């Protein structure tokens, strides 16, 4: 039974270590902008500020090394180090909960920003137990391939259900999906709107009156991105591209130097368009 439990635990531990390592790398790499995410994530907050990024990177590299040691090199010491890693993590999270109740565990980088609770601590304790099972049974890649069975699959499903139940990140991800920022607040690269403009009927209609294919000016207001192109006779041709959907609404106006529209507003939407 121990071997079956260990065979089921090994792929889950490996997957979680890889996911945790990748998420930490992204979070540490994304820190240059100015909004200091690491100051709200454990265990980076436990070290001085100048070492926070290094601590996050070291943690990620350590997780990758454990995966490599267990799977590629099939080392017993790597399995023991995995036990030590999760045991220390359990203690660190317990300590973090006591010392900095406002910060998240950072287990999966920036997604784990919910303050550390008993669930996060219990999850690491469960992972420690799984690592102990793997180390005690001394299961490697060869045993994993040989030990695949319905019983092991049931164990793995049980582990996954338990870990998902103990993961506050699941709620965080669901909340982010449900409360997606409205288009007024979402960053959208200007190139995407320009590509959609050039695929629109309004562009094809007015391409002949443009003196250049490169916009003179471009700016964004709420859900609209505006492009101004130099038109014939010194006029400005201004396109407004809505920033939602693959075939967005495009509006266009030709404005003279005096600021008055030269022709009536034309919309790119064909009569058959559903929008």
């Amino acid at each position, binding site marked *: 039974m121990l071997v079956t439990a260990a065979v089921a635990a090994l792929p889950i531990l490996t997957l979680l270590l890889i996911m945790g390592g990748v998420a930490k790398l992204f979070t540490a790499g994304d820190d*240059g902008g*100015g909004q200091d995410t690491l100051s709200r994530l454990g265990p980076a907050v436990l070290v001085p500020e100048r070492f926070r990024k290094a601590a996050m990177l070291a943690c990620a590299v350590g997780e990758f090394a454990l995966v490599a040691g267990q799977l590629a090199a099939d080392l017993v010491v790597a399995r023991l180090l995995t036990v030590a890693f999760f045991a220390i993590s359990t203690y660190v999270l317990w300590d973090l909960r006591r010392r900095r109740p406002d910060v998240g565990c950072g287990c999966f980088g920036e997604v784990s920003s919910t303050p550390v609770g008993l669930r996060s601590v219990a999850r690491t304790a469960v992972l420690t137990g799984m690592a102990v099972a793997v180390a005690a049974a001394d299961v490697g890649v060869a045993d994993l391939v040989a030990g695949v069975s319905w019983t092991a699959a049931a164990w793995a499903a049980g582990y996954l259900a338990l870990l998902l139940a103990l993961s506050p990140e699941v709620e965080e991800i669901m909340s982010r999906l449900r409360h997606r920022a*409205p288009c007024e*607040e979402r960053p959208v690269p200007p190139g995407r709107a320009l590509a959609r403009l050039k695929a629109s009927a309004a562009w094809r209609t007015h391409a002949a009156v443009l003196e250049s294919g490169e916009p*003179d000016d471009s700016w964004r*207001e709420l859900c609209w991105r505006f492009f101004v192109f130099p038109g014939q006779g010194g006029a400005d041709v201004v396109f407004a591209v809505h920033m939602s959907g693959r075939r967005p609404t495009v509006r266009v*106006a030709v*404005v003279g130097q005096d600021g008055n529209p030269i022709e009536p507003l034309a919309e790119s939407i064909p009569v058959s368009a559903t929008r």
Partner: protein
Amino acid sequence: MPHARVERRHLLSAAALGRTAQPPQPAEDDDGPALDALSGRILDTTPHLLVIEDDEGQEERLVIAPWATAWRGGPVPPDRLPLGSRVIVRTRSGRVADCVWADMTRMTGTILDVRGRRDLTVEIDSGPHRGRRSVVIPYQATGRLLVRHPKLEPGYLFDAIGTIQDGTALAQVPATSQPPYRANATPAPPPAFGGAQSRISGTAVWSDLDDDGAAYPMLESSDTGCDQGVVPCARLPYLSLGSMLFVRNVCGRRSTAVPIVACGCMAGRFCDRCVDCDTSPRGRIVELSPLSYVRLGGDLTKGCFNAQVGLR
């Protein structure tokens, strides 16, 4: 970015979307007499008359109201203001000056260095557009500034109001209570429940803007060079330089439309509230030029008013 092109944006976007492009309106008054503001240099003062040269070089003669107040590092009688001082005057009913602020400046930024024992010299970084500046906190003002800025150390935010005297910026009153977080750890805005709002509530502040208008924190970096690593503490929609922003002073019950003329990169880092008449929601949503701020009924020595913003 050429200035004329930015000024034309509002007109062009209005044409494309079929909106009416109206020029900025003077502050609409929900109640009370109309307010106006002008700035210039004092040419002469008497107990009843203030003569200033405005920014266009025109001489303006203003009657000083009997109840008028003046501020230059502290309350002073209006006729005691030194000649040559740069003033911002709030006027009512045309040419009646009822409040005068002299040599005002606002020092907002991230603390880089603090030196001195008696008078403190604070080096601040005011953002990518305004650069660094050196601020002196006179010994008499250190008590009231330190009580609102308990972390006067590098990496924390600083916001004070004072005067420029002999070329030196003197911080004399705190403009806010210092945020407890470091400047690079601005709290994230709340999640987007229920989509975008047409009017957003928060705090309006003033700053030493060169042009008359507003600085807005949520501009695209390609447009302004704003550091987009900082997402403002309040949830704000993207706008651009040249957009007309509707601003309402909730306490003073005045509103107007002002053009966005700069990036409010530093305002976005402050997650404070204004308690002018009531407690505002968190976050600075707009930074106004001193003239726009005064026209909306703001007091330059207070530093903020509860505001609502939206797009016209």
